[in-house]
């Protein structure tokens, strides 16, 4: 079944990205939007637009009933969820399919399995994918916790089985702390999630964040190599690149093969990402979680492989087999993406919506700017602060860094502060240029380099 009319259940730059992919496939588009997004670029570009409610996302972009009504009313035959909002909501995926529409993503059951931290870990271990050493599932009692923690070695993280977003995590340095923290963690998890279940994981210090892009058609899965996203602030990625500057080829092959094994084990369909921690001292990698959606940083993979991931998602979910075989996926050169956010680096990254009074977009060789901005656009305060993603490709990492500096200098967003100055400072930093960083590198760097940043 081919898609004729695609409804985009998202907003911002990713809605624009999906509309572009649809247009190139000759597919009509329906953009749903809140009243705060009536003037958005996606609404202007789509063939049709449907208002689904008030600005507050719970009443619009998270309103499954309103989105399905819009699909019915417009005659759409497929729904692309983008990222965030309902993209990883298994009930939404099921509801879309129950309405007789194509969900441009995995089956609800695959989302469900990967969304439950303990279930995902069990599936990974079963597929032979290395996980962070820890308990196999929930820990039954103190004695078991003590036994496991001693075996994997301190420090250990005590995590809530039903948790997420960093809540309910405690780090114990020794047995005494473990004994004190377990009852507190359990009580807190019970209060926050209605489930006091805990599991344990070893703390991997100075780890790098490396993730593998996969594509599946429900039967077969392939990988499109890795991305490194170790430069993070408050667990939010700010700079992503492909390939990783430090991964040896042999480890790359093992890492990517493990991702394909897990994707095939859950009959994965669409685009997905398996996130790992990588310890470059020991060259060990550990699966942490799978994101069952297209990711913000997907363009760096597109730049090094030439594969259009969003197009491929639409094709495989409408029943086509993957258009590429693993042996034909090759990587070439180096790509870097930086997130241009409506935040003021000089004011501790305070978000600042406003009106774009003038805009100059970078161009030239190997340069891509995915954005929803246009001159005169009023950035609403109700959603996240991402304005655009500046992506560059060049033959080597060094050349890509230089191209990034050139492209950043061409970018001018007038009317509101952006994170451009952060990326210019990072691209000039000797440690960033050497690829010598880990997930806890950026925050102390920011404290020391605040004076280099401006609005």
């Amino acid at each position, binding site marked *: 079944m081919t898609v004729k009319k695609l409804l985009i259940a998202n907003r911002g730059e990713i809605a624009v990205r999906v509309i572009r992919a649809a247009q190139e496939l000759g597919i009509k588009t329906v953009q749903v939007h809140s009243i*705060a997004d009536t003037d958005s670029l996606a609404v202007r570009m789509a063939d049709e637009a449907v208002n689904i409610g*008030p*600005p*507050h996302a*719970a009443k619009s972009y998270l309103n499954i009933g309103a989105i399905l009504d819009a699909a019915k009313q417009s005659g759409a035959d497929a729904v692309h969820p983008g990222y965030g909002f309902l993209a990883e909501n298994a009930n939404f995926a099921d509801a879309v399919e129950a309405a007789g529409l194509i969900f441009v993503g995995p089956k609800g059951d695959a989302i469900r399995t990967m969304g439950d931290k303990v279930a995902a870990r069990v599936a990974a271990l079963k597929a032979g994918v290395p996980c962070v050493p820890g308990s196999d599932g929930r820990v039954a009692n103190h004695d078991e916790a003590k036994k496991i923690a001693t075996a994997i070695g301190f420090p250990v993280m005590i995590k809530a089985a039903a948790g997420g977003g960093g809540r309910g995590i405690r780090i114990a340095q020794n047995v005494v702390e473990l004994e004190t923290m377990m009852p507190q963690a359990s009580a807190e998890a019970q209060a926050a999630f209605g489930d006091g279940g805990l599991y344990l994981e070893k703390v991997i210090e100075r780890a790098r964040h490396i993730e593998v892009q996969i594509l599946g058609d429900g039967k077969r899965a392939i990988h499109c190599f890795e991305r490194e996203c170790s430069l993070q602030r408050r667990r939010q990625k700010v700079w992503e690149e492909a390939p990783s500057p430090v991964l040896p080829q042999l480890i790359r092959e093992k890492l990517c093969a493990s991702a394909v094994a897990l994707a095939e084990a859950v009959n994965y369909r669409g685009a997905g990402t398996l996130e790992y921690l990588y310890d470059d001292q020991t060259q060990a990698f550990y699966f942490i979680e799978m994101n069952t959606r297209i990711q913000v940083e997907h363009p760096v993979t597109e730049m090094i492989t030439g594969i259009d991931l969003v197009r491929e998602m639409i094709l495989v979910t409408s029943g086509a087999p993957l258009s590429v075989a693993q042996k034909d996926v090759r990587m070439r050169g180096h790509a870097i993406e930086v997130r241009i956010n*409506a*935040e003021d680096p000089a004011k501790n990254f*305070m*978000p600042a*919506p406003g009106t774009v009074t003038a805009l100059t977009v970078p161009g030239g060789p190997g340069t891509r700017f995915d954005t929803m901005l246009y001159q005169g656009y009023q950035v609403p*305060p*109700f*959603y*996240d*602060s991402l304005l655009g993603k500046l992506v560059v490709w060049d033959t080597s990492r060094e050349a890509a860094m230089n191209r990034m500096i050139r492209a950043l200098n061409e970018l001018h967003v007038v009317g509101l502060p952006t994170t451009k100055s952060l990326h210019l400072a990072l691209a000039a930093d000797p440690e960033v240029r050497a690829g010598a960083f880990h997930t806890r590198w950026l925050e102390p760097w920011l404290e020391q380099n605040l004076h280099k940043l401006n609005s």
Partner: protein
Amino acid sequence: MAKHILSPLPGTFYRKPAPDTPNYKEVGDSVVVGDVLGLIEVMKSFNEVKADQAGKIVEFFADNEEPVMAGQPLVELA
């Protein structure tokens, strides 16, 4: 003249710190300078709205989860 507490930022107004907790303040409560009256969510970041004057709350002009503009009156004090 009525005393108004204005929204410092554009965004979404919340009258309570979390969905399952009581409101910060109710009509009839007395407030002193610095008391938290609500939150404004702007681009997923939460900012407290503090009283810059003292008085007794007469009215809330914005409901919980209502979109507000910068400078818009949120609370009337007497």
